[in-house]
C-alpha cells in the first residue's frame, strides 16, 4: 500500500524536476522570438544562430578552465585522499576541515575575495583566476569521491607490492592508480561539470574572457537572444546527459566490484 503512494509521489516529483528542463528544448524549436505560449511552429533557426564567435570563444574558455580545474583538483584530491586513508596523520580532521571549508562559504564570497586578491596584486582578471576559484570549489568534491574509492579497495594489495620490493611511488603508480581509475574518472567528470557550470566566481573574475555561463548571463538581458540561449541550453543538456551516464556507469562499476582481493 505504502509503496504505491510512494511510487505515485516519485512520479510527481520527477515531473516537478523535468517540467522546467523540458521547457528549454520546447522553446528552442519554437518559431517565435517570444518565449510564451501558444507555440507558433517548428524551426531550427535558433540552432543556426549558435555560430557566433563570442559564444564559441566562451565555450573554448569554459572548456579550458574546466579541464584545468578537473585535472588539478583530481590530482590534489588524489594526494590528499591517499594521505588521509593510508597514514594515521595527526590533525587529520583539521586538514579535512580546511579542505572542505569552501563548502561552507557562499560562492559569492569566494568570488569577491579572489577579486580583491587579483586586484591587490595588480594582476589582470583572467581565466587563471577563475580556475583558482573553481579549484577551491572542486577539491572537496574530488576528495570525497576519492576517499570513498580508497576505502573501497583492499589495502593488502599495496602492502604486497611493498613487500615485493616496490617503493612508495612505484606502488602508487602500478597498484593504487589502476585500482583508483574509476574513482579518478568520476572525479574528473564531476569536477569538470561543476567548473563548466559555475557562474558566481567566474562572473567576478573572468574580466573580458567570459566563460559560457557568464556569456549566457549577458545574453539573458536581451529578449531577442533568448531562443538562441535556449538552443544552447538544449545542446548542453544533451552533452551532459551523455557525460553523466558515463560517469555513473564508471562509479557504479567501482562500487560493485571493489574487493579485488578480499
Amino acid at each position: 500500500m505504502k509503496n504505491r503512494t510512494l511510487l505515485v509521489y516519485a512520479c510527481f516529483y520527477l515531473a516537478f524536476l523535468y517540467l522546467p528542463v523540458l521547457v528549454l528544448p520546447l522553446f528552442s524549436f519554437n518559431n517565435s522570438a517570444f518565449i510564451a505560449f501558444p507555440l507558433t511552429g517548428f524551426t531550427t533557426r535558433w540552432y543556426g544562430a549558435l555560430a557566433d564567435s563570442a559564444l564559441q570563444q566562451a565555450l573554448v574558455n569554459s572548456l579550458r578552465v574546466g579541464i584545468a580545474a578537473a585535472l588539478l583538483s583530481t590530482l590534489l584530491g588524489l594526494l590528499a585522499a591517499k594521505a588521509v586513508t593510508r597514514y594515521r596523520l595527526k590533525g587529520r580532521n583539521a586538514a579535512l576541515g580546511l579542505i572542505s571549508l569552501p563548502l561552507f562559504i557562499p560562492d559569492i564570497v569566494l568570488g569577491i575575495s579572489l577579486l580583491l586578491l587579483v586586484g591587490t596584486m595588480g594582476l589582470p582578471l583572467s581565466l587563471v583566476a577563475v580556475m583558482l576559484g573553481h579549484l577551491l570549489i572542486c577539491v572537496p568534491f574530488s576528495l570525497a569521491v576519492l576517499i570513498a574509492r580508497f576505502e573501497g579497495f583492499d589495502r593488502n594489495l599495496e602492502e604486497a607490492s611493498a613487500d615485493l620490493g616496490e617503493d612508495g611511488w612505484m606502488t602508487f603508480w602500478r597498484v593504487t592508480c589502476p585500482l583508483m581509475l574509476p574513482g579518478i574518472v568520476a572525479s574528473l567528470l564531476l569536477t569538470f561539470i561543476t567548473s563548466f557550470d559555475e557562474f558566481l566566481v567566474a562572473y567576478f573574475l573572468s574580466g573580458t574572457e567570459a566563460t559560457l555561463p557568464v556569456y549566457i548571463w549577458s545574453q539573458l538581458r536581451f529578449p531577442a537572444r533568448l531562443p538562441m540561449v535556449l538552443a544552447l541550453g538544449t545542446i548542453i543538456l544533451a552533452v551532459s546527459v551523455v557525460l553523466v551516464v558515463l560517469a555513473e556507469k564508471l562509479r557504479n562499476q567501482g562500487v560493485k566490484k571493489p574487493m579485488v582481493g578480499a
Partner: protein
Amino acid sequence: MADGGRNLRHGYALIAPTLAVVGLTLAAPLALLLVASLKSQSGIGFEAGWTLSQYGDVLGRESYRILFGRSVLVAAAVTLVTVALAYPMAYFVAFHARRKFLWLILLTIPFWTSYLLRVFAWKIILGYGGVINSGLLGLGLIDQPLSFLLYNPFSVVVTLAHAWAAFAILPIYVSLEKIDRSLLEAASDLGDGKLRRFLRITLPLSMPGVIGAAILIFVPTTGDFVTPELVGGPAGAMIANIIEMQFTQVGNWPLGAALALVSMMMVAVIAGLFVAAARAATKAVR
C-alpha cells in the same frame, strides 16, 4: 607499518600540496576581504586610514537588516522545502525502487543542465505568458493571466527548491542506503509499528544525510544573486544582490566586503547551530 615516523612524513608530504593550495587561495583572499572591509572607498582606491564605518552601515541600516533577514528566511525555506520534498523520493529509491541505478540517473539528469537556464526556465513557467498561465487560460479556469506567480519570495523558493534538488536527494539516499536492514527487522520483531520504526530507526540514522543536504543547500542559497534577480523582482531581492552591486555598478568595495563578511559569519553561525541542534535532537530520539 605505515605508521612509522618516516612513513608518516610521506603522509604529510602527500597532503601538503593540497593544504597549501587550498590554504593560500582561501586564506589570502579572505584576509584581504577583512582588510578591505576596514577601509573606505575613495575614487577607485581605498582611503589610507582604518575605519569601522562600513560595519556601522551594515548593521545600522534598516534596508540591509531587511535584506539579511529575508535572505536567511528564504534560504531556510528553500532548505526546508527541498529536503522535505526530496526525503520521500530518496526513501523510495533506497527502500522500494527495483531499479535504483535507473532512478538515480533519472533524478540527476535535470540537475546537469546549466544552472542559469534551470533558473530561467522557471521564469518561463511562472511568467505572464508562461506555462501555468497558458494552461489555466486554456482550461478556462481563469480569464486573466495571474501576475502574482512571479517576482516574489515564493517564486524564489520554488525555483531554488528545484535547482538544488539533487543536493538533497543524493546525500539522503546515501545515508538511507547505509542503514543496516537487520535493525529494521529487529525493531519490527520487538513490536514497533511502521511509523514508530521509521521515527526511531530510519529517521535518526538518516540524519547525517539530512544535515549534509541542509548545509549543502543553505550555504550557497544565501549567496545567490542570480535567482532573486531573474525571478525574485524587487520584493524578492536578497543580500547577495546588494553585495554584487557594490563590486559592479556602485563600486564601493569596502561596503561590499563588510556585507559579505557579515553574511558569511551569519551563515556559519546559523549552520553551526543547526548542526548542533539536529545532532542533539537525533540523540534525544534514540
